[in-house]
């Protein structure tokens, strides 16, 4: 059972964070939080998302899970004002979720959660490098890199104290170096990996709203982006597997 009220902004941010990677997922809820863990169809990108009960203006739930069709949830956006309060209701055993706001009442059929890909385990990997920068700057670099290439290097250069994003295209390339003064924090541990911009573009749009994004990075290892949503009452982690180029 889930009965909760949430502002339109947080509702949208949460759904958008999921839809950057998946079209459907399993949403779990307990007395204290809702969470989801999902992987894209190619097992390349993963999202781990949680919202504490404090993110809601009203929250009441017993432990359960539902299968969400994310495109259908997004259909509710069009009629949703910025400051609307969104009422979500899922009685135990029902195969629908009721979304109510400003006189609108959407009754959305749920997916059979047995047909949705299993929740992935978060890979147990140690990533030595860690850097924190602003979400909007991160998104800007990803957007500009997308113009010249389909892949981008993320690197921490401890010698020059630089965090470097570098995209090499067929004829042009783009490099953005963040000096120690430009990053919010960095542990200056050596790290360098290559990633697909296709995946990063959708994640970047979501991360652009975050004041700060913490990036965990290794050498030819996955990357992890962590940031807050819902004014600190929610947490999102994106994990992306690297590209390994044969030389």
């Amino acid at each position: 059972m889930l009965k909760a009220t949430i502002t339109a902004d947080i509702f949208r941010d949460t759904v958008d964070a999921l839809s950057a990677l998946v079209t459907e997922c399993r949403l779990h809820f307990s007395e204290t939080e809702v969470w989801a863990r999902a992987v894209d169809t190619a097992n390349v990108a993963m999202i781990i998302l949680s919202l504490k009960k404090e993110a809601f203006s009203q929250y009441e739930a017993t432990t359960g899970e539902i299968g969400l069709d994310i495109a259908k949830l997004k259909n509710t956006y069009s009629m949703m004002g910025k400051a609307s309060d969104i009422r979500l209701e899922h009685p135990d055993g029902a195969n629908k979720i009721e979304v109510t706001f400003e006189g609108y009442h959407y009754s959305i059929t749920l997916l059979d959660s047995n047909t949705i890909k299993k929740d992935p385990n978060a890979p147990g990997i140690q990533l030595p490098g860690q850097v924190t920068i602003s979400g909007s700057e991160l998104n800007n670099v990803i957007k500009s890199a997308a113009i010249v290439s389909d892949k981008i290097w993320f690197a921490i250069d401890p010698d020059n104290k630089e965090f470097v994003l570098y995209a090499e295209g067929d004829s042009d390339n783009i490099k953005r170096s963040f000096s120690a003064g430009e990053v919010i924090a960095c542990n200056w541990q050596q790290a360098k990996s290559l990633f697909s911009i296709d995946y990063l573009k959708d994640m970047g749009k979501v991360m652009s709203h975050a004041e700060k994004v913490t990036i965990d990075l290794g050498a030819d290892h996955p990357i992890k982006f962590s940031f807050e949503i819902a004014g600190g009452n929610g947490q999102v982690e994106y994990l992306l597997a690297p590209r390994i180029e044969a030389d």
Partner: protein
Amino acid sequence: MLFLNFAELCSRLEKISGRLDTIALLSETICSLSEEDLPHFCRLILGKPFPEWSGQKLGVGPNLLYEAVAYVTGKKRDEIIDRLSRVGDAGAAVEDLLSQKSQTSFFTVELSLSDIMAALLEISVTEGGRSQKEKVRVIQRLLSNASPLEGHYITAILLEDFRIGIGDGNLREAIARAFSVNPDLVEYANQVRNDMGEVALLAKQGETALQSVRLVPFHPVRMMLARQGTISGVLESGNPVAVEYKYDGARFQFHKQNGRCRMYSRRLEEVTAAMPDVVTLLNDALPDDIIVDGEVIAVRDGRPLPFQTVLRRFRRKHNVAEAADAITMLPNLFDILYLDGRMLIDLPFHIRREKLCKVAGNFVTPQLVSDNESEIEAYYHAALDAGHEGVMLKLQDSRYTPGVRGKDWVKIKPEADTLDLVVTGAEWGEGKRAHVFGSFLLSVRDEEKLIPISRVATGFSDEQLAWLHDTLQDDILRKDGKMVYFEPRLVFEVGYSEIQKSPNYEGGYALRFPRFIELREDKDIKEANTTEDVTDRYIQTHKVQNES
């Protein structure tokens, strides 16, 4: 069974050249399969995930596949298309691409044969506005978990381009050997059930199970086919034969049970909705619980119209009622396969005919029974005069053998200077035809391969060229200058004046003055003419010329 084992088996089978070795390996594998895997295996090894009668289709074109491969490998679409054009075979190209994929993933899941089947089923039932996206998603899921070799055969299955040299014949022998049953019984059961998957399960139960197969309404069987021949040849036995008009129409099978009717085309696609007028006629005329075989012809002022007129109706999905008013469609019934809970295909033809006449009255094809050559010839000329294609000669004591092109039915028609050829490529046109294809590359079948034999540039209307241009877009495999090459799907009937020896085409023959006659939408590429047919015709004509 793991799909990887299946893929490895396919790869081994492709390399075996001897028929006996192929059958031995196949039967050994079949023996080892579980009840669940056995039917899936037998269908997939023939490259057909679903029973032929079920009408289920995947509907995956090369473009969907490119999209999924690009996503999984982290390569650009252009790179994918480029690789494909260099490798030539889509399966081999995908294998190649997957082995060099630069995008890593968090984990992969081992694919089993039933995982693959579940995914294929998901693809086939997906419909509506988001169906293309959904299909791509399923293919992405499969390919991201697939090894390169698995990717090879997944691709071949998805594109319905699965060619590892296993046909019904080899599979039949392998099933028979695996379960120690008579191959003829396996063949018989497959004729009736039209699904090697189900037949394999029956074979596992034993010969009694194979013998007791029955026809069921709404489970269509393949049409019995005829060979080309001569009147004198058929009369050699000395027995009278049944002579019927050979109609220039579209073959169909009509099923009725509990007041529900369905009509199937020669390729066993359901055409009930496209032919409401014919269905109503037959529903009114026929008793319940029946399966009949016939040909529908288009008639205006009592004379048959060309075959395309009928096919246009078969194809139609919209404005069916309007189309039904414009032309009269007339069903002609010539066989009955099932009546009142009884399967009739094992009865002699003349008995089936009696039963058909009793229940179908007006719609039964006229018939002459004779052993007199000149009488039959006169009947043949009367058929031609009435606008029909020729006549069919049928042995009076013959069974109905679904899918078999045997000696029991013989077609007599004017010397055909046409071939059914597979469209494998096209060249962009010039001038007035600048935005459509101006000529098409046509190929004959040579066992599993397709060998170019001719190009055809004449005989098309502007509408046909525009339509072909649109419908072929999704089939484009690769481009090379002004040439494009297609995933083989369409069959053209092409007329010609002569078959010549030619160094210009791989098969060693070329057609003189080829012209497009019609699109044979009722034919599958497996029904196109073969190199053997072409060689036979070449030898025939040159023999005649030498004799004269």
